[in-house]
């Protein structure tokens, strides 16, 4: 179970370290992106909405501990949401619990070593959104959460590492494996449907 240390004070009064802005002023503009990430993590709209609300409530509650650093409030907010997500998963005992990298390596290491590094197949990526979405859903949660953050194109590896609370090397490793898995799925799809550009198509 992941713990979140939260202070018990209101976000309106706690503005230290936040450039004098309230929690609402800083956090609400990121609501769209936070929700989209929650949706990809949970694959369920209602659960995503609940998760976002829980994250914002927790963020508001512990806002007095937030310090506006170079990345702003977004990674901090996403980290809170991720912890809430992991707590929910652990409580429900359905989704895999938060695993450290060593456990992940044990779980996926064999596949990673056997799996040959692949380049993305030659496909028309403008028409592959549905397949990419399915491939993302098929990823193990630890890889999916990293890949989702990466897919926003707004977060650096370091920011993703901060959100996931892992070293940057772990982020790169997870992204590598996630992409390889997606590439393999897309390649299989392309072979089944004879879609390789410049070959069968």
């Amino acid at each position, binding site marked *: 179970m992941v713990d979140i240390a939260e202070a018990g004070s209101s976000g309106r009064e706690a503005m230290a370290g936040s450039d004098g802005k309230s929690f609402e002023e800083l956090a609400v503009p990121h609501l*769209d992106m936070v929700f989209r990430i929650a949706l990809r993590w949970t694959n369920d709209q209602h659960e995503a909405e609940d998760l976002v609300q829980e994250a914002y409530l927790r963020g508001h509650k512990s806002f007095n501990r937030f310090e506006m650093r170079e990345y702003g409030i977004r990674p901090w907010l996403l980290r809170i949401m991720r912890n809430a997500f992991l707590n929910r998963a652990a409580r429900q005992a359905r989704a895999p619990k938060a695993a450290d990298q060593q456990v992940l390596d044990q779980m996926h290491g064999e596949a990673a070593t056997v799996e040959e590094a692949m380049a*993305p*197949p030659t496909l028309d990526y403008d028409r592959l959104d549905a397949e990419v979405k399915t491939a993302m859903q098929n990823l193990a949660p630890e890889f999916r959460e990293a890949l*989702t953050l990466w*897919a926003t194109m707004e977060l650096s*590896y370091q920011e993703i590492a901060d959100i996931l609370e892992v070293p940057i090397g772990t982020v790169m490793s997870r992204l590598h494996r996630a992409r390889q898995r997606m590439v393999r799925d897309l390649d299989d799809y392309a072979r089944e449907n004879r879609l390789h550009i410049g070959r069968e198509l």
Partner: protein
Amino acid sequence: MTEEQAREILPIHADGELDARRASELDQALADSEELRDEFERWRALRRCAHRVVMSTSTPAGLKEAVLARISRKDHAVKFPLTGWFSGISAAAAALALVFFILQPKPASAIPMIAADRFVEIHRACALGGPHNTLGLNTQDIEQARVQLAGLVDSRVLLPDLSANGFELKGACRCFHAKNLDAVHVYYDRQTPAPAMVSLFTVGCKVCVKQGRCERCVCASGRCREYQVACANKTLVYKWDEGACSYAICGDLGTGELRALADALEFALENTGPDLQLTFTSDN
């Protein structure tokens, strides 16, 4: 940089995360190889595609308002936030209180809490569903029954004569398995004016009925009795204490009739004649 080395870091370069030195080397490799450039573009296309997937969903209408409303409610709920040193002292006091609560010895006289349906279950199973007469009462004569019980129990069993109310003794058992409590269950039935059964319980120690409301009465002897009244499965239970024991009556009678029957019961200590020494050994 070999082509193999270049391929390994192509996705990272596509993400713009390579350091300047290696990025420069890779750019050179890309300039020299059309195949590498194609692969580089496919990595970028994959990310763009993933980006579209993530961004394709719009935020549900009302989510922002819901978030703000919950935050606002939270603000109002925190009228007197504990801050600074005061919150620290409060937390320490709470922790001390918790430790004290955990470590303090439990009082030996803690009264067990019993749900009303414990009584009702026995009434239904052993009286209505019986007769379950494991104590072997074979007489309807109350005085003889009291004698039969002598030597079987070590507390005073409520065994009243209810013939004036039309009820006859039918049997007795000790089917009361809540929290290892010893209890005797005796039950009566009647045929007129309407068939009915009532059960009386003598529990070997004081118990408390969960969610029971209190009612008081003055018995025929002039002494006060305080009931705990609860209902389970549409069956009323009246429980009261006397000496070191608890007694209860339940039955499928109307509220007024059952209460009147309970009120008519004299105190067991005064009405059971000679002491009844029950062993409470297993009867099953």
